[in-house]
C-alpha cells in the first residue's frame, strides 16, 4: 500500500512545526500555484526535476545551456543514447512532464546570464544543481540584489546542491538573511594549478607533462587554433605529446583518461550521491514552500566514502565583509609580498584565491585605473602597469575595486604588504 504523506501533514500541526503554521488546504494550493526554477539539468538537475514533480510542485522551469553527452548516461537518468546531442533542459522537461501527469515543466536551453531580474522575480524559489562556481556566484549575487527590504516577496530562497564523487553538500540560502554563496567561497580549496616554470623546466608528475602539451606545445604547433576540449582527436594529440615528454623524463602515469581529466577538469560523479543531495535539496524546497516542518539552517555536508557521515551546521554570514550580501563597506584584505608585480598579483592572487577567483578582472582605485581589459584603448594604455610593482601603484590605505564580466558585482579589497 502506498500512502503519500503530503495530504496528511498539511492538515495537522506537527511537534516540530513552527508556531505560526496554519494547516489547511490552502497549503497545498500555495504549493501547486508556486513557480519554481531549477538551474541545471545534469546529474543533480534530473533528480531535482523528478523530486519536485513528485513533491506536488506543478509549475517548474528549468535552465541548462548544455547538450547531452555519452558520459552523462551513467547518472542523468532522463536521457537515453538516442538523446545524445540534444539540449538537456528540453529532453529532461519533456520526460518528466510526460511521466508525471499534471506537472508543467518549461525548459530554457541557454545561459542563466541571458535572463534578467524580471524573469527571476516570477519564481517562489530557486533550486540549483550546478557544477560551476561562476554560475553559482552569478545567481547568488542576482538574488541578493533583487531583495527589496519593503517587500518580503522579493526574497527568493536559493537551495544549492553540489557533488563530487562520494561527497556533496546541500544548503539553504535566504538572501540577505542567511549566509550567501559568496560568504562561503573560502570553504573551497585553492584551485590546483602548476607553476609554468615547473611545467617548462622541472616536470615531475604526469600532470606537468599534460599541461606542457596543452599550455605550451599546442600554441606552438597550432598557432591561433583554439583547443577543443570535447574533441577526441585534440585530446589524443595532447596525450601523445604528453606521453612523449613523460618518456623523455622517465615520468610514469600519463594515460588518455588522465589527459582528458586534467584538460577538462573532470570531477567524478555517480548516481547515488546525486540522488542523496538532490533529495536533500528538494526536501528543503517542499518544507520552505509549505512550512509543514522547519527547513535546514543552513548547510549539510555529506561524505559517503567511509561509512556515511553528514555534518549539519549553520554557516555564518560575513555580515560586513561579504562583497555580495555584506551590509557595511566591507572589503577583503589581501596580504602580498612587497615586490609583487601587478601581473603576478592578478595571476597568482586574484585568479587563484578561492574567495576572489576572477577570470579576466579589471582593476581601479579611486585615484587611477590600474588595469582595464576593455575597451581596447584603455587596455593598451594600462597594459604597461602590468610589469610595475604593486607597491608603486597602490598604497595600503587605498581601496581597489575589481570588476569581472562573469560577476554581476564588484569586489573591493585592500592590500597589506608583507
Amino acid at each position: 500500500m502506498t500512502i503519500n504523506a503530503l495530504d496528511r501533514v498539511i492538515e495537522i500541526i506537527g511537534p516540530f512545526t513552527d508556531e505560526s503554521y496554519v494547516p489547511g488546504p490552502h497549503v497545498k494550493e500555495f504549493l501547486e500555484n508556486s513557480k519554481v526554477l531549477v538551474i541545471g539539468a545534469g546529474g543533480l538537475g534530473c533528480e531535482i526535476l523528478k523530486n519536485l514533480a513528485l513533491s506536488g510542485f506543478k509549475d517548474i522551469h528549468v535552465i541548462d545551456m548544455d547538450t547531452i553527452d555519452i558520459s552523462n548516461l551513467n547518472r542523468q537518468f532522463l536521457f537515453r543514447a538516442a538523446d545524445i546531442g540534444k539540449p538537456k533542459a528540453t529532453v529532461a522537461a519533456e520526460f518528466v512532464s510526460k511521466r508525471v501527469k499534471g506537472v508543467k515543466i518549461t525548459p530554457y536551453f541557454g545561459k542563466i546570464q541571458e535572463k534578467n531580474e524580471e524573469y527571476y522575480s516570477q519564481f517562489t524559489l530557486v533550486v540549483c544543481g550546478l557544477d560551476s562556481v561562476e554560475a553559482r556566484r552569478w545567481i547568488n549575487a542576482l538574488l541578493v540584489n533583487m531583495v527589496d527590504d519593503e517587500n518580503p516577496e522579493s526574497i527568493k530562497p536559493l537551495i544549492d546542491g553540489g557533488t563530487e564523487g562520494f561527497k556533496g553538500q546541500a544548503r539553504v540560502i535566504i538572501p540577505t538573511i542567511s549566509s550567501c554563496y559568496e560568504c562561503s567561497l573560502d570553504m573551497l580549496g585553492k584551485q590546483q594549478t602548476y607553476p609554468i616554470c615547473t611545467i617548462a623546466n622541472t616536470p615531475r608528475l604526469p600532470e606537468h607533462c599534460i599541461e606542457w602539451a596543452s599550455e605550451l606545445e599546442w600554441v606552438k604547433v597550432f598557432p591561433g587554433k583554439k583547443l577543443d576540449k570535447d574533441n577526441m582527436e585534440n585530446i589524443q594529440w595532447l596525450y601523445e605529446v604528453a606521453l612523449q615528454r613523460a618518456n623523455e623524463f622517465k615520468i610514469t602515469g600519463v594515460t588518455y583518461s588522465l589527459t582528458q581529466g586534467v584538460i577538462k577538469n573532470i570531477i567524478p560523479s555517480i548516481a547515488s550521491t546525486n540522488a542523496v543531495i538532490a533529495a536533500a535539496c528538494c526536501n528543503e524546497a517542499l518544507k520552505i514552500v509549505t512550512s509543514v516542518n522547519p527547513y535546514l539552517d543552513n548547510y549539510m555536508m555529506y561524505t559517503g566514502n567511509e561509512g556515511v557521515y553528514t555534518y549539519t551546521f549553520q554557516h555564518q554570514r560575513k555580515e560586513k565583509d561579504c562583497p555580495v550580501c555584506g551590509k557595511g563597506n566591507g572589503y577583503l584584505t589581501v596580504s602580498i609580498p612587497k615586490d609583487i608585480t601587478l601581473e603576478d598579483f592578478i595571476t597568482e592572487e586574484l585568479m587563484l584565491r578561492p574567495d576572489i577567483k576572477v577570470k579576466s578582472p579589471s582593476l581601479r582605485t579611486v585615484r587611477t585605473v590600474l588595469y582595464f581589459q576593455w575597451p581596447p584603448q584603455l587596455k593598451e594604455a594600462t597594459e604597461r602597469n602590468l610589469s610595475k610593482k604593486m607597491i608603486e601603484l597602490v598604497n595600503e590605505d587605498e581601496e581597489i575595486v575589481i570588476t569581472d564580466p562573469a560577476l554581476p558585482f564588484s569586489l573591493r579589497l585592500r592590500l597589506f604588504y608583507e
Partner: protein
Amino acid sequence: MPPSERDRKYDRQLRLWAGTGQAALEASHVALLNASATGCELMKNLILPGVGEFTIIDDSLVKPDDLKLNFFFNDESVGSPRSVIACKLLGELNQDTRGHALFQNPEVLINDVDFQWDKFSVVIITNISESSVRKLSNILWNKSIPLIYVYTVGFYGYLRVINREITIVDTHPESLVDLRLDQPWPELIDYTMSFDLDSLPILDYAHVPFVVLILKFIDQWKSAHNGLMPGTYEERTQFKQLINDARKASDLENFDEALASVWRISQKTTIPPDILAILNDPSIDNLNEESPDFWVLVKALKRFTEAPRNNGLLPLSGVLFDMKADTNNYIRLQTIYREKSLADVHFFTELLNELLLELNRPSSSISSEEIKLFCKNCRYLNVTRGSKLDSEFSSEGFRSAYELAAFSENHDPFYTYLALRVYSLFLDKNWYYSENGKQITSRDDVELKNLFKSIITPFPTVPAVEKVFSEIIRTGSGEFHNICSFMGGIGAQEILKLLTWQYIPLNNTIIYDGIFGTTKTWKL
C-alpha cells in the same frame, strides 16, 4: 588509444572504482523485494552504473496512488503488475543491464524453502512486515548474502546493512604516502649522503627534495644528541631552527616544505592499531585450501612483519607526493621508494608462496596484481563485521547509544531511531502491510508507547520519543518521495561498496531525519 564507447559512458564512475570495480559490479545480480518507491529509487542508482542483473519481486498491481510516489510507474501502467512495470521502466535506464520481474508475493517467497537465494549477490527489502524481514535476514545470514533493509515514514528514513563480513583491500584512503623518515633504508641513506649541500650552486640547492633535506638534518641532529631523534615538542622546535639556520636564501620552497613536514618525524612508523587487530584476527589461525584470499594474504603479511629483516614494518606503499625538486632528483627519489616497495612485494610473494604451499594451493593462485594492490594498501585494510537483526536491541552498541542519549541536551537522534523501530514493529503486529492496509492514527499512540515499553525494556518512553511518534502519526504511515529517494541513494551507495569491494561500508544502521537535515549511524 581513445576509450571505447562503454568506457566513455562510464567515465565519471571509472575514475572512482576503476575497471576492476566495474567488472565486479557487472558480474552482480541484485534482488529487490517490493517495488516500493524507495526500492525503485535504489535500483535506479544501481542500474545506471551498470549492475549486471536485477530481479524485482512483487505481486501487487499498480494503483493510481503509486504514481504519486514512484517515478517508475506511468499512467498506462495502472492495473498492471508492479514488478513488470518497474522492471521495464527501470530497465530502460541502461541497455547493458538485464532485468527480471517475478510476479510473486515476497512474503510467500520468503517462506518458500525451495527458493534459490544463492543467485543473488545482494538482496534489498523494503516496506514489508518486520517478521518477514527477520525470517529472510536469517536465511541470508546463513548464506553470507548481504541484506539491505530500508523503509521510510514521513520525514524519516531507516536503513540497515545486515552482512556477516566483508574484507576490503582497496579502501581509497586520502593518501597512500608513507615516507618513513624515521626509518630510512640503505638506498635512501646512500642517496641522501650523495648530496653535499654546501658545495651546491644556489639553483641546485633550491631543488634538493625536502625528503633529502630532512634526512640530512636528522643525521646532523642525531650526531649531536647521542643518536636520538628530536622527540619532544621543544626538540622539534630546535630542529626547525636548525633547518632554518641552514637555509641560504629566504625564498626556498624546498626548505619551507621541510619545515612543514617536521611533524612527520614525530610519528614513529609502526603498524596502525586497526591493522594490528587484523593481523591478530583468529581468522588466520586455521587457514585451509578453501580460505578466502584476503585472510591468506593477511597471514603472509603477519609473517612479513615478523621477519627479522623487516623490523616489524609493513611493506612500503612506494607512493610519493609531489615536492619542489628538479626532474632528475625527484625521479631518482621516486625510484628509490618504488624499488623498495617492489623489493617488499618480492619478499612478501616469497612468504605467500610458502604459505600457499602449506595450504596445498598452487603458488600462482593469487595474481601478482592482487598481491601488489594488497601490499600497496596494507596500512588501510578494512574488515567490517556486521551483526544479525535479531541482536539489535541487546547489542553493546544499542546499550551505549541509549545511555549516551540520556545525556544529550538536544533531541538525540537515537530517540528518533527508537521510535522508527517501534513503529515498524507496530505495523507488523497490526497487519498494516496488507493490500488494503490501514493508516496509523492518533488512536494508536497508546499502543506505540506500550510496545516501546515491551521491546525496549525496562525503559519507558521519553518525551523525545513521543514527539517522533506524534510526527509519525501525523503522516499516517505516509511517505515522501524525497525521503524515499534519499534513502535509495544511501542504499545504492552501500551496495556499490559491497559489490565492488572498495571504499569503507556503513556498519550497520543509519537514520535520516529530514526535518533537521541530519543523519546518524550506529553499530547495533
